[in-house]
């Protein structure tokens, strides 16, 4: 108690110097907490976007993750409804699962032959259960996205309605029909080029006949989707385009087609057994992912099914890369702050020791041990660090509140529309306590060299010091 009382009084001797040093520590804390808050917000925003669209975990047929996207029809999960039912009824998983839903990947060629148009392009499609997707889009564990307003485009009961990427709409010349703003009309085709993907005449006829069988009573434009079935036979379906669902990555946006699961299954499996390529699980909490994954793997092994489980980090390497990048930047920033604090505290404490040399000699002559001298100066460094770090925490919280109420907007990576610029409250213990304790520790350790010098000084020399 006396130690810290003395330490506090000693650092208040030269107030200006102590305030400057504590302020530098505070700046360190402020910078680390603000950047930590920013990265926390980025991670939460990215994770939310990915989990809303793709869930936390996906169950695939073994080998699908590496080889399936090129030929999804070959990697269908047999009797997927039973598998889903068994997963959902598992006592461990049941309480963790928010949504469990099947998906069917499909690749092929999309064409627009309405009103004399003749545009086609390759697509990567996904067959979904719309109501499940609507529920998934409402997931917001971290409060990092705007509340989702269901637009029923995905859960439209019409079995042949779906969404396409903005790029797909642009290339198929559907921007006008879909009222997509800032969407240019494609230039007229160059006849001589002959490289544009075009439907085989026989398939175009098939498309025309399919069109003839589809209801054209709605106002939604219609496109034709061509793919190969699991048996290798060509198949084609028509899709009424309910709207555009812009994807965050251009390559994906230029190929994205979302359709009802039944339509995708019809396209891929025709009259054969309807399977799915994936069973997506969205959990209530991301922290349950390891447990849920382990449980799924155990169940799959128990059921002896040829399935594999992937989590959203594996499915989205971009997320892992962003986390790694920001973590590296945070580490770099932390190192800079540590160096600044280190030099500031060393400088201040060295001057303190120098100015108090005679006093050190006095108390040593009175019977204070060397270790006690060292402890006193270390305590002064710790108090300086604690004062600065505490000040930094307070200022950081005020600054974050100001930023969050400033009305700033931005479009973070992985998002398609601007959202309010928010900083997450740095309440995670690893960030808040880590920063505070880290800076106090750095300030304390920075005091060690001058404290050792003070402890080692000879009493008679110290007493003679002017």
């Amino acid at each position, binding site marked *: 108690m*006396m130690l810290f009382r*003395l330490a506090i*009084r*000693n650092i*208040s*001797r030269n107030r200006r110097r102590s305030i400057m040093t504590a302020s530098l520590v505070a700046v360190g804390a402020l910078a680390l907490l603000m950047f930590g808050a920013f990265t926390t917000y980025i991670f939460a925003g990215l994770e939310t976007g990915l989990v809303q669209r793709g869930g936390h975990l996906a169950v695939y047929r073994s080998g699908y993750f590496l080889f399936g996207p090129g030929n999804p029809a070959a990697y269908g999960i047999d009797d997927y409804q039973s598998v889903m039912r068994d997963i959902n009824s598992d006592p461990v998983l049941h309480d963790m699962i928010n949504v469990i839903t099947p998906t069917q990947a499909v690749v092929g060629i999309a064409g627009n032959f309405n009103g004399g148009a003749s545009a086609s392009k390759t697509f990567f499609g996904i067959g979904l259960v719309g109501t499940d997707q609507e529920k998934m889009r409402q997931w917001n564990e971290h409060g990092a996205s705007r509340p989702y307003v269901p637009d029923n485009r995905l859960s439209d009961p019409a079995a042949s309605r779906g969404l396409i990427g903005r790029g797909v709409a642009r290339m198929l010349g559907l921007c006008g029909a879909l009222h997509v703003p800032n969407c240019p009309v494609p230039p007229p085709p160059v006849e001589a080029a002959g490289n544009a993907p075009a439907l085989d005449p026989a398939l175009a006829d098939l498309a025309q006949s399919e069109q003839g069988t589809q209801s054209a009573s709605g106002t939604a434009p219609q496109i034709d989707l061509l793919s190969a079935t699991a048996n290798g036979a060509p198949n084609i379906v028509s899709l009424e385009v309910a709207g555009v669902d812009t994807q965050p990555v251009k390559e994906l946006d230029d190929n994205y087609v979302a359709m009802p699961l039944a339509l995708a299954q019809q396209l891929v499996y025709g009259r054969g057994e309807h399977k799915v390529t994936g069973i997506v699980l969205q959990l209530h909490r991301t922290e349950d992912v390891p447990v849920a994954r382990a449980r799924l793997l155990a169940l799959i092994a128990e059921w002896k099914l040829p399935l594999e489980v992937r989590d959203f980090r594996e499915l989205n390497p971009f997320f892992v890369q962003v986390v790694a990048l920001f973590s590296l930047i945070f580490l770099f920033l932390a190192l800079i702050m540590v160096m600044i604090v280190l030099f500031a505290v060393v400088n201040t404490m060295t001057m303190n020791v120098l100015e108090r040399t*005679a*006093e050190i000699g*006095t*108390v*040593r*002559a*009175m*019977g*204070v*041990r*060397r*270790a006690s001298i060292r402890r006193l100066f270390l305590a002064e460094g710790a108090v300086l660090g604690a004062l600065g770090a505490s000040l930094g925490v307070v200022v950081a919280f005020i600054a974050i509140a100001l930023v969050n109420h400033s009305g700033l907007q931005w479009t973070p990576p992985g998002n398609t529309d601007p959202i309010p610029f928010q900083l997450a409250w740095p309440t995670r213990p690893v960030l808040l306590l880590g920063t505070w304790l880290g800076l106090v520790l750095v300030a304390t350790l920075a005091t060690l060299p001058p404290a050792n010098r003070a402890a080692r000084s000879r*009493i*008679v020399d110290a*007493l003679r010091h002017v």
Partner: protein
Amino acid sequence: MSEAATTPVVRLDHIARTYRVGSVMIPAVRDITLEIQPRVFSVIVGPSGSGKTTLLNMIGCIDVPDSGGVEIRGEDVLRLSDNALADFRARTIGYVFQAFNLIPVLSAFENVEYPLLLLNVPAAERRRRTLAMLEAVGLAAQAKQRPNELSGGQKQRVAIARALVKEPALVLADEPTANLDSVTGASITALMRRMQEEFHTSFIFCTHDPRLMAEADQTFSIRDGMLV
């Protein structure tokens, strides 16, 4: 008479101390042997540079001789470890410095209390003894004041109280009146004499002050590092 009362409080046996200044060796103390009996008011006198302070430092266990032996209250202090020596100083020796050397961030009360903290004296006992000592030196009213709020004489009184509060066997004072005016110096001299008699402590001074010399029970004259 008890053994403690008859054992010399200080016994120096042929001690010598040489300082190196650059490449020059300067003998500060040369072959000094002396004994100081308990409860006496001793003075070491001599011209500047004669080795008074070096001798006092070795008696006070804050410097060690190059050769010879030092016993304080019968304890061979040269055999003690650094920590043991610090503890020995804390128990046995009180210091009064020429420049007072009070701790500026502590009040008069806390400065006097400080040596008792080093001895782990219980809080209530510390308070009682500190207040009694401040009363004895006439500074009870200034207990809460910090050194920068005290006059030179008051500071030296606090320093005397600090040196005596732990009831040491030995109080060492290096030119305790040199920084004081003559009136204040005289009152401090009288105070120290009174305290020495009251607490039965041995006082050893280095001084040029004739008033202090006049008060001495025992005087050691030193010149060129040797007793004369």
